[in-house]
């Protein structure tokens, strides 16, 4: 006796959150059944393995049918085929667009193209996330990217409007789109200690405060003009003397650090150099400070003083530009400064 056909259709579409998770995680029906058995569900419910198999197949089929609609979430809301309560619809969408930290770290900043898609095999092996799940996550990134790429207005709002995501998730997607668009390098070994959250935090600051095409080259004078650099250093040192645990290290390193920070600004004007932003920040600032064991509080003191002191430099005329640049950079650096 073999089951040729076995279906269950409810007037309200049954969604089992646990099975949905397994499906999203890309497990095959067989694996999902095995995992469910391991969860002890058979003992709890007194069901048999055959029942579990049938139930899992059924849910998988439903999810498969829903997937087409999940690609355009507003369609899920207006379609008539599946009667799903709004709260469940939101759950379906939110979970479908959720992604794994390990996965996003691999793809963040990469071009969302076929080429990257080919690498998904490796990513899957490396992260232990199933290839199927990797594909879904990658396709989600790509889909969102394609839809909002050319749109005007707030990135987060556009994503929310077209994909009906929660505020948190829409912000994450905005970061992913922003990174993919600018192709920031995030995969270098020295950047491995950074989490997606770190990058997303920076992305949000940059999206909010920075505009493309600002003439950041003007800031170069701060390090190019030796007098200005010396004056800047003395201003900072005077202000921080006795307040910084790592004062002597700071004093010794000031020029290097300042050059690093200002050169990052200059590089932002060249599109192909933009990609190295995070590498530069870590190489030129985070690592030197870390090797001298600066506590975070000292980094904060220093950055505050470093950017404020510029106001007292009479020869410098780009105060507003500097504030905008440093305001964001300070926020990013403080976030990036950890082990």
């Amino acid at each position: 006796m073999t089951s040729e056909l076995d279906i269950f259709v409810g007037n309200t579409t049954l969604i089992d959150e646990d099975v949905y998770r397994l499906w999203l995680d890309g497990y095959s029906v067989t694996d999902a059944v095995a995992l469910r058995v391991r969860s002890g569900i058979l003992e709890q419910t007194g069901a048999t393995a055959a029942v579990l198999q049938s139930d899992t197949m059924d849910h998988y089929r439903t999810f498969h049918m829903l997937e087409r609609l999940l690609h355009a979430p507003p369609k899920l809301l207006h379609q008539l085929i599946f009667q799903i309560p709004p709260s469940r619809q939101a759950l379906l969408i939110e979970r479908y667009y959720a992604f794994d930290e390990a996965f996003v770290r691999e793809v963040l900043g990469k071009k969302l193209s076929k080429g990257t898609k080919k690498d998904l095999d490796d990513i899957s092996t490396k992260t232990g996330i199933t290839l199927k799940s990797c594909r879904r996550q990658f396709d989600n990134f790509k889909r969102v990217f394609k839809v909002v790429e050319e749109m005007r207005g707030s990135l987060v709002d556009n994503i929310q409007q077209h994909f009906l995501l929660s505020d948190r998730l829409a912000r994450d997607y905005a970061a992913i789109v922003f990174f993919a668009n600018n192709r920031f390098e995030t995969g270098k070994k020295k950047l491995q200690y950074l989490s997606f959250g770190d990058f997303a935090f920076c992305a949000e600051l940059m999206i909010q405060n920075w505009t493309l095409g600002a003439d950041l080259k003007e800031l170069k004078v701060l390090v190019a003009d030796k007098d200005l650099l010396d004056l800047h250093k003395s201003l900072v040192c005077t202000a921080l003397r006795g307040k910084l645990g790592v004062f002597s290290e700071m004093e010794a390193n000031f020029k290097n650090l300042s050059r690093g920070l200002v050169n990052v600004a200059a590089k932002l004007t060249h599109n192909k150099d933009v990609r190295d932003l995070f590498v530069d920040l870590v190489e030129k600032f985070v690592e030197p400070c870390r090797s001298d064991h600066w506590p975070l509080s000292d980094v904060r003191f220093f950055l505050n003083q470093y950017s404020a002191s510029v106001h007292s430099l009479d020869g410098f005329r780009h105060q507003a530009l500097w504030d905008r640049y440093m305001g964001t950079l300070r926020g990013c650096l403080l976030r990036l400064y950890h082990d």
Partner: protein
Amino acid sequence: MPGKLKVKIVAGRHLPVMDRASDLTDAFVEVKFGNTTFKTDVYLKSLNPQWNSEWFKFEVDDEDLQDEPLQITVLDHDTYSANDAIGKVYIDIDPLLYSEAATVISGWFPIYDTIHGIRGEINVVVKVDLFNDLNRFRQSSCGVKFFCTTSIPKCYRAVIIHGFVEELVVNEDPEYQWIDRIRTPRASNEARQRLISLMSGELQRKIGLKVLEMRGNAVVGYLQCFDLEGESGLVVRAIGTACTLDKLSSPAAFLPACNSPSKEMKEIPFNEDPNPNTHSSGPSTPLKNQTYSFSPSKSYSRQSSSSDTDLSLTPKTGMGSGSAGKEGGPFKALLRQQTQSALEQREFPFFTLTAFPPGFLVHVGGVVSARSVKLLDRIHNPDEPETRDAWWAEIRQEIKSHAKALGCHAVVGYSESTSICEEVCILSASGTAAVLNPRFLQDGTVEGCLEQRLEENLPTRCGFCHIPYDELNMPFPAHLTYCYNCRKQKVPDVLFTTIDLPTDATVIGKGCLIQARLCRLKKKAQAEANATAISNLLPFMEYEVHTQLMNKLKLKGMNALFGLRIQITVGENMLMGLASATGVYLAALPTPGGIQIAGKTPNDGSYEQHISHMQKKINDTIAKNKELYEINPPEISEEIIGSPIPEPRQRSRLLRSQSESSDEVTELDLSHGKKDAFVLEIDDTDAMEDVHSLLTDVPPPSGFYSCNTEIMPGINNWTSEIQMFTSVRVIRLSSLNLTNQALNKNFNDLCENLLKSLYFKLRSMIPCCLCHVNFTVSLPEDELIQVTVTAVAITFDKNQALQTTKTPVEKSLQRASTDNEELLQFPLELCSDSLPSHPFPPAKEHLESASSNSGIPAAQRDRCSSWIELIKLKAQTIRRGSIKTTMTVEKASPVGDGNFRNRSAPPCANSTVGVVKMTPLSFIPGAKITKYLGIINMFFIRETTSLREEGGVSGFLHAFIAEVFAMVRAHVAALGGNAVVSYIMKQCVFMENPNKNQAQCLINVSGDAVVFVRESDLEVVSSQQPTTNCQSSCTEGEVTT
């Protein structure tokens, strides 16, 4: 030109991409009714076209309005080649023809294609202007309301229940016409869909005419089915119960919108009407005159002559003086005569209803059924479907005479079905023989006083259990005892019925779904040899199904079956029998005896041991079931009477001799002893198998109950969460060495596993009950068995598990509240309601004992901190009807309002699709139906030539059923409704050809579109409502004391 149909095409959305180059579609719409077609403009390059068309107006006869569906076709315009069809929408405009149903159909309809399924949606507005024309030669029956619901619809009152109406129409099946060889599958499917839609409309119109002729205004319990007879054609047939209904809010009797005076009616040519009496007596004669003629009409057709003889055989006088109490006797006889006369007017005194107004059902005799095997031949003249008519007439006649043999003049819970395999067709009919109260059968002109006294003397709660047949002349062997409730009348030891449990019946404990399953192999044969083989097998199958049911019932410790439905399915090489029913313990019937196993070779020691082991297992199961279903019948009565238990043989004679002296009935009743056990003789391996299979049925997991009736006996505190579902399973049998045993096991496992899966899937709803569990079996191919289940899961409140409706406590409470003096003065009368011959106790104790009688488990009783509270709760339960308790208000409503963190995702809140509930029940828990919008009767075909790509057979059928639900919901929403009640999937014919990567499925569903309002919302508006309801129901005789 009696009507004008107006249609407006507003917009489309989510259309499929028809032009690959532009990824867009140039859509336009054709609107067709009858032979007239209108077109909208082409809306270029859009998947969401806004046509916003003018009003297309069709001027049509109301006959066409009833028959024809409105056909809307969405197409993609193509300049250089033929326009591509995107899909269609068929709209049944019948609901617009009732004066009080829907006034407009407006909404988004899924665009359906038989090959691709749903492809986007279209927004349509439809209106009808009807003109009355009274003088026309009428062929239409606009205004007659149709209900699938098999009880009097919730917001109506039955003025008269006229009786049985039936009709069938036949046609060639387009699928089998020569032209089909050159037609595309799409064209063929659409031709079939359109034809069935047309035939359904015609059928409904013809039935409507019959109803008008009977001077009714509605058909209740309308059941329409189609038979795919293959080469020989297509039959659409329907049965129903004609009624005159009165809307409850408006006291004036409702008349059909275009009702014509009765004088016009005699002009109606009723060619198909098999009863010539209708013509000769003339429709101009008022119906009530007919009902008063006591003499049997000689002008009856052949059937009547046979029924006359049956009548004389019917021992009605014996009933009156023999078993009836001395008070009840004469009235009962009178009542019997009246009923008889009222029913004699009808050729078939059948009622498709399964639940009745209080007082309607007087006695129930038992299940009557008839089957016949026919060979299909080509229907030569579709306009005169005489053969099919004659076949059914024959079967109905048989049913009628079976009922007569049971001393009954009517059949309730009546239904008909067919099973077809190649050229063989099994026609089946079944129902419950019953004696009815004439009050509802005629124009309400019965002498008032008589009626009242009748009601006073008829014990309503247990009355239906009392045998209607004469105990001296019993139609079948049965053990009779005095009713355990009133002690005055005789009751059988078990009662099988096809109806729902009467709401006023006293039940102990809870009910449960009981199924008998059976397969029998049959040799493949042709034509007559095949028909003969089947005919020969049928009686054995019926017998075995019955035995299985009886055994399983006893194993559950119960004594009655409700909602019994036996389905016999014929296949190429086997017959399948599936019986489903809801078992209960009726307080009025005796405690069922156990099951005793007797071996054949008593000398063999090990065998003996085995037998005793089995016996122990059975006894344990019975004990466990009694606990599980809370069956604790009161044993007090025995102690009081304390008489010895007589030999079973003597007992009936003893009772017989004593039955005259009804005064001492209670003292002399000796019938309540332990019944002699039902003996199962194990004489061969077959019987062994049977016993084993008895024990393989696993009870539902804790927190689950199931039944196939409307309401679960013993549960009435429903909360509002409902989930209707359809589940389909097909198994392939390994063709090697199939034996009956292996087959039975396969089939049994299939059903059991299916149930287990349902329990598992719905586990989040616990505590919950699967209601109206409806199994259908079909044998689509040699080695395939298909089981389809539709049911609804309803949650209930465990913490407030109040016992069932109308318990003795409630009755006495009502008395107590209305007249305390009386309660004190006539204690014995009260007691006879609850506990006979119990010395009158102090009120409190009385209540307690009475409620234990009603089966409230002690643990739950304890939850009520005081009896006052319990009383209040019960009183509330009464006022709100049997399905509602106070907790419903507090319980969070529908399935969806979960507590998912919604705070951050506001966009999802503004969903535009309204929720439409679907349920096979006639009610919605925790809600009140305020309006019936019309019948939903839809037929769909879906076909695929890319089965693998659509996810195989499961993917294909899953999607199709989901689409069918969606289309039903869309139609209901467009009518302005928010639910379908009495929903039924009447057919799900699935055929596959995996080698060709093809599959096809036909689905037929129906139900009543309604508007419901949550009771919690209602109560805010008017808190007075329940009281008024109670009063009105009192006057209707619901509460008789």
